[in-house]
């Protein structure tokens, strides 16, 4: 199974919610990588917003200063 996060959209859950079709659950203020179509539906429903924060698992160079 591939983990192609490039085609996904990083978004933040605005509140706890569940998807009955996929059985997925989402927790308020947590970030997730969404399929674009699912993100569009959740965003339209007011459940998510784009998460502009840098990924926490992004590699950092030792000694580099934050931008």
């Amino acid at each position, binding site marked *: 199974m591939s983990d192609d996060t490039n085609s996904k959209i990083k978004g933040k859950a605005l509140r706890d919610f*569940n*998807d*009955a*079709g996929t059985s997925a659950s989402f927790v308020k203020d947590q970030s997730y990588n969404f399929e674009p179509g699912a993100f*569009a*539906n959740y965003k*339209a*429903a007011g*459940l998510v917003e784009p998460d502009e924060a840098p990924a926490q698992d992004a590699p950092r160079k030792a000694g580099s200063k934050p931008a």
Partner: protein
Amino acid sequence: MPGTAAGTTLALSAGKPATFDVAGFAALTYTEVGGLDKIGTFGAKPGKVEFQPLKGVKQKYKGPVDSGALAPSMAHDEADAGQNLLRTAADDQQGEYSARVTYPDGAIRYFTCRVFGYDEAAEGAENMLMGSTTIEIISVIVKKAAA
């Protein structure tokens, strides 16, 4: 093969199909509406145009086709993504949404729609808090047969 409606699902998409055929609708991503207890009856039906000649029986013709509406009801759930999309669509004055009804045998019905309101019903202590709405179909109903 005849069977019960158990397992039938209703799902919505905020997107619209590029083409009004199975391929166009199937390319969209849908979010299932949870907690449904029924979807209701729906289907395209032509209006009736009547003409009563001075002599003879009344003539009846087929008029414009109305694709009908669904009247689903559900156990109200604030945390269900599909229900939230349904309620957003109800508040959206002009927005068009795509819908997918999937039957237990795999047959699918696709259409675009507008959602007219969302009623909440607190009928009594021995009843679930329910929600209901009317989904008016505004396109042809695209049918995909069971595999």
